[in-house]
């Protein structure tokens, strides 16, 4: 399904992962999110748009401001609870192993 691939594309970008990390801890406005990055504001807006389109983030109007929330349900759908965490470490350790094999005499 296309949507699913889009989600993974969305999270493949380090800045977008950093945004998800920030918003996971508390809901934030676009301005507050952008303040955490050296990246230009329009670039951050684009990232927020992508994350919202694939439903990893949700927007809620709060007066004149828009607050961004993490969509926990969507995050769960994307991957089962522990498997991605395990895979991340597995990838890392595979690399460690490959690199250190070069040092074997």
């Amino acid at each position, binding site marked *: 399904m296309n949507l699913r691939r889009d989600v993974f594309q969305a*999270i*493949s*970008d*380090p*800045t977008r*992962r*950093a945004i*998800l*990390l*920030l918003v*996971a*801890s*508390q809901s934030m406005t676009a301005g507050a999110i952008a303040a*955490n*990055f*050296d*990246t230009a504001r329009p670039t951050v807006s684009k990232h927020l748009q992508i994350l919202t389109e694939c439903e990893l983030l949700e927007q809620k109007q709060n007066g004149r401001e828009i607050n961004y929330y993490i969509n*926990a349900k969507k*995050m*769960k759908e994307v*991957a089962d*609870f*522990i498997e*991605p*965490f*395990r*895979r*991340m*470490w*597995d*990838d*890392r*350790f*595979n*690399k*460690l*192993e*490959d*690199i*250190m*094999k*070069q*040092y*074997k005499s």
Partner: protein
Amino acid sequence: MGQKTRIDAEDGKQDLVITREFDLPVELLFRAYEEPGIVEQWMGTKVLKLENKKHGSYQFETSDPNGNVVFRSNGTIHEFTPNQKITRTFEMENTPFPIQLEFLEFEKLTDDTSKLTMHIIYKSAAYRDQILQMPFAKGINMAHNRLQEIVNQLK
């Protein structure tokens, strides 16, 4: 590659254990944690500081492909016993996630194989689950693509 890495995380507990067996002598496995130049390659981070001693500290930094810093982490090393163990704290800077405690045990299995056991303790079960649900959060310091490039160059 098979699935060599195991995660044990019991429901409702505030810790988890990561275990992995390596086709490497324990000395080489430990070296991958000890030498900044090697840590940088497999973690995909820049090592700003790595003092491998009791009360030493470390700091890692990850940038996006444009050179913007996206993630910084640091911690204090409490125990450092070559080829045996590292005990350290881990903090993700500028995030509200509490500091975590990590016990790393390095074990010789045979002359050519070894095992790493990483016991991570979080402030609460809720925080542990939040971090488990966010592999992308942890993935930030992984710079997966860049690491893949390094490994491909080595092949």
